[in-house]
Every structure is written in structure tokens, then in C-alpha cells.
């Protein structure tokens, strides 16, 4: 005979509550994807290929797409080499004073509010140059990208079993050769995924571009010292405009951004065990 017991009842309530809250945690993402697809798809369908290639007057976001690619490319050129070296350094000297300080610094930079980076770059690049530029935007993105790449590099290197390290030094090659010719190639996969995730991350950043990139939506960018647009920045501007047309265009641009992001992020994420963002 089943008897009512308070303990069992509590247990049931608990399990139902946990499941409900879990659904509530991930439900927003489904709703976001649904809303973006529902509002964005009709805009893209209606305008066709011009949406991807045309300028603002043709109701297209071509220059913004080009701008985002240009910014990610430039910021990678600036940020990746430095971040990679810092990551390798942090791996090689985890316990020295500088090594520990570097790791603490990377942590702080990971959490640094991105809008502050934008303001900082405006002060050191935009004001002296007298104009917004792709270079300034890319530098701001590079600052945001660096700690991610460095931490990913360090973590990927730490995954290599210690015996490989012993073996490579045992060959009698110098430290430079042992690390850059043997250990780094061993961690290549982890480092590459880290780099790709960081690039996907900065491609979606808005705040650091607010006071650095300037925006260019009529024609394609031609020079790195001139203002440039970006998809997130364009969406931010469009949302704040009162016109309905601008809003639907913002949804269309959001769909493009979302597809880019999911297209890069999910395959990488599936091939990786741990992700830190």
C-alpha cells in the first residue's frame, strides 16, 4: 500500500522544480533563435541578394559584412601573435613571479568591461588621428581577443602529457626549438580552436566599436585609416532609430550575425571538451 509521505512529496516537487528551472534556463535561446529567424527571414527573402551586397540606400548590409570581416582580420593580425606568445610564456613559467602576474593580468583583462576598452582606444588612437578608423576598431577588438587566445593557448599546451616535454628536452634541443617545434605543434588543435572561438567572439562585439570604428554603411571600406562599419554596430544603430524599416533591417542583420556565429561556434564547440568564455 502506498502511503503519503511528506519526504516523498518534497522529493517530487523538487524534481519538477529542477526540471522546470532547467527548461527556463535554456528556453530564452530557443526563443531568441525563433524570433530572429521569424523576423529576419522575411526581410532577407524580400530583398534577396542585394541584402548581402548592397549599401544602405539599397537596403543592404554589404558594407557592414565586409567591415566585420576586415575588423576581425585586422584584429587577428594585431592580437594573435602577441597573445600566442603570452600564452606560451604563461605555460612555460607558471610559477615565476612574472608568470603568475601575467596569469592574473589575463584574468583581469578577460573580465574588463568592453566599453572601457573602446573609450581607451578612442583616447590613444582616434583622437590623435582625428578620425574613426578600421585600425582603431581592430585594435580595440585585439585587446579583447588577446586574453582569450592567451588563456586558450596556455590551457591547450598544459594538456600535453609531461613525458613529451621530458622527451623533447631530452633530445638536447634548446628551449625555443623544444617548445615551438615540438610542443606547440602537439597542441595545435587546441590552440586553433581557441583562436577560432576568440575570433567568433570578437566578431559579435559591439561596445568596443562604439567610439572607434565610426561606421560606414553606404560604400565598401577601402582604407584601414578610414571609418568602417560592422554588423553588430549597424544593428545597434538601427534599433535606436524610430523607423519600422530600420527595425526590420536590424532583424535581418541579426539573422546574418546569428548564422555566422552558430556556423562557426557549434562545429568548434562539438570538437572541444571545455570552453571558457
Amino acid at each position: 500500500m502506498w502511503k503519503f509521505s511528506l519526504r516523498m512529496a518534497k522529493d517530487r516537487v523538487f524534481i519538477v522544480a529542477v526540471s522546470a528551472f532547467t527548461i527556463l534556463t535554456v528556453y530564452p535561446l530557443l526563443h531568441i533563435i525563433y524570433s530572429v529567424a521569424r523576423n529576419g527571414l522575411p526581410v532577407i527573402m524580400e530583398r534577396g541578394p542585394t541584402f548581402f551586397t548592397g549599401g544602405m540606400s539599397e537596403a543592404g548590409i554589404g558594407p557592414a559584412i565586409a567591415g566585420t570581416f576586415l575588423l576581425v582580420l585586422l584584429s587577428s593580425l594585431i592580437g594573435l601573435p602577441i597573445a600566442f606568445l603570452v600564452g606560451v610564456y604563461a605555460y612555460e613559467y607558471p610559477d615565476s613571479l612574472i608568470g603568475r602576474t601575467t596569469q592574473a593580468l589575463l584574468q583581469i583583462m578577460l573580465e574588463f568591461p568592453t566599453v572601457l576598452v573602446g573609450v581607451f582606444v578612442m583616447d590613444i588612437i582616434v583622437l590623435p588621428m582625428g578620425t574613426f578608423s578600421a585600425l582603431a576598431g581592430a585594435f580595440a577588438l585585439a585587446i579583447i581577443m588577446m586574453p582569450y587566445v592567451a588563456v586558450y593557448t596556455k590551457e591547450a599546451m598544459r594538456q600535453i602529457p609531461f613525458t613529451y616535454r621530458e622527451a623533447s628536452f631530452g633530445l638536447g634541443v634548446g628551449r625555443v626549438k623544444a617548445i615551438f617545434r615540438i610542443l606547440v605543434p602537439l597542441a595545435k588543435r587546441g590552440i586553433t580552436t581557441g583562436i577560432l572561438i576568440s575570433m567568433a567572439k570578437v566578431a559579435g562585439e559591439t561596445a568596443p566599436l562604439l567610439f572607434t570604428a565610426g561606421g560606414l554603411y553606404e560604400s565598401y571600406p577601402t582604407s584601414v585609416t578610414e571609418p568602417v562599419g560592422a554588423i553588430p554596430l549597424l544593428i545597434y544603430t538601427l534599433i535606436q532609430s524610430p523607423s519600422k524599416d530600420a527595425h526590420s533591417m536590424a532583424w535581418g542583420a541579426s539573422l546574418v550575425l546569428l548564422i555566422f556565429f552558430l556556423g562557426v561556434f557549434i562545429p568548434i564547440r562539438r570538437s572541444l571538451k571545455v570552453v571558457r568564455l
Partner: protein
Amino acid sequence: MYSRVADRFRLITSPAVFFVFILFCGMLAVYFSNAYPAIRREGVHLFLDNTWRAAEEPEEEYYGIAAAIWGSIYTSSIAILISMPLAISYSIFVVDCAPKRVKNVLIITSDVMAGLPTIIYGIWGVFVLVPFMKRYVMTPLYEHLHFIPLFSTPPISGFSYLSAGVLLAIMVTPFSSAIIREAYQMVPFRYREGAYALGLTRYEATKVLLGYIKPAIYSGLVLAFGRAIGETVAVSLVIGNSFNLTPSIFSPGYTISSLIANQFGNSFIYGHMRPVLYAAGLVLFLIGFLVNLAGMFILRRWKKNVEI
């Protein structure tokens, strides 16, 4: 021992490390030096007053950023309060209840949410979340409970501390739940066995096991708070951007980051506004820095205890 002179490795990597250090120090220097005039001009009142008088005459200008500081802390606190039960339940479900495939899907979903461009949260917040909150949460609460100070502002636009807090909660839950889930997974299996061997129900066993990872829960929430306070575009789109210093969660407000995002562009017209915004940035940095430091400290101490 390697001879220091011959260590080409240091020679190659040190410039990069040095560059990052210089960059960081430069950043602090820029903020301190640019904020200094504002702090000298207005002193402590800059942070304690709620006035925003931008005037053409520089002598007339007077700024107090108390409302923005309040807004930042308030919205992030709302976010954490909402995020706490969600993150804990999610971790319990993923570790204890979910079958392997569901588990993987849930973890990937959470990671996607952590990395999703914030502007997408922003556009969803403006056109979907805010109207929803206004119609189904704020209006009924105001109609029936407006005598409570928390709900005392009529929800005219829906842009408010509450909307910003809810959106932030959605955005930062993946960060706290990642930390809590990892910690919950690390609870030694024998404790689990022990709990069930005592005949505890799942609820009772979980309660005991959660006690074990309490520090990790705190640090997850603290780190999420740090994330929330630095968030810019999504918040500035839904918070309503007006200077209010009130406990009413339906009132539109400002946060430090949305203040900077909104005002920095036109601060050049005014004589004294720019240093004020740098000072606000400095406050934002300091709050975030302290909060993150605390979170990492708790987590590190706990991890050390666990390993022993």
C-alpha cells in the same frame, strides 16, 4: 640550469608579455589621468549626487553619477537573484538527472548562450522581452501591488531596471552555471553513495551535496555579477536611460556602462563632461575588479581544500 644569456625563449616571448603589461598600465593611466579633473572639481559629490546638468556655460555644468552607480549595482543584483535558482537547478539537472545525450545538448546550449553576440540579446530584449514584461509582469503587479515601493512606478514604456535585470539574468546564467556545474561534478562519488546509502531522498541528498560546493556557488554568482555589471549594449537598449535613483524596479534608469555608451559620443561639446565619464569608467572598473577578485579568491581557496 639554463644560462640566462642564452635563453632565446625569453627573448622571443618577453616583448609580448611586456606589451600586454604596458597596455594594461596604459589603460589605467589613461583612465586615472582623464578622470582626475572631474574628481578634483567636484570631489566626493561626483559619486554621491544625482544630478546631470550639461550646460553650454562650463561654470553651470554639474554632474553626479550616483544614479548610474546605483543602476549598475541594482540591475546586476536583480540579475543574480534571478540567475541563482536557474543556475543551481541547471547544474543539478545536468549532473544528476539528464541522460547523456540531453546532457550534451544542454551543455552546448549553455555555451552558445555564453558566447552569443550581446547585440542579439539586445534586439530580442527590446522587441520581445520588454513588451512581454510590460504586459504580463509589470502591469498586473503595478495594478494590484503599487503600494509596495518596489512596484510603485507606473510601467509606461516597459524599459526599466527589471527588464534590464531579467535580460542580464538570461545572459549571465550560463557563466555561473558553468562554474557551479563543474564544481558539482567534482563532488566525490563516495559522498553521493553515502548520502543514498543513508536512505536520503534525492532532494535531501542534493541538499547535502550542495552544501559541499557552497563556495563554488558563491564564486559562480559573484563572477556572474562581474559580467553583468560590465555589460553594455544589451542593457543600454532596455534600461530606458534616464537618471533615477529609486528602489522601484519598474522605473527606467541608467547604468555606468550605458551612461558611457550614450553620453561619451557627445561629451566633447561640453567642458567638463568627458572627465566625469572617465571617472564613471574608473568606478565601473574598480567594482568589476573587486568583485572578480573576490570570486576568484573564493573559488581558488575552495579548489585547494578539495584537492587536499
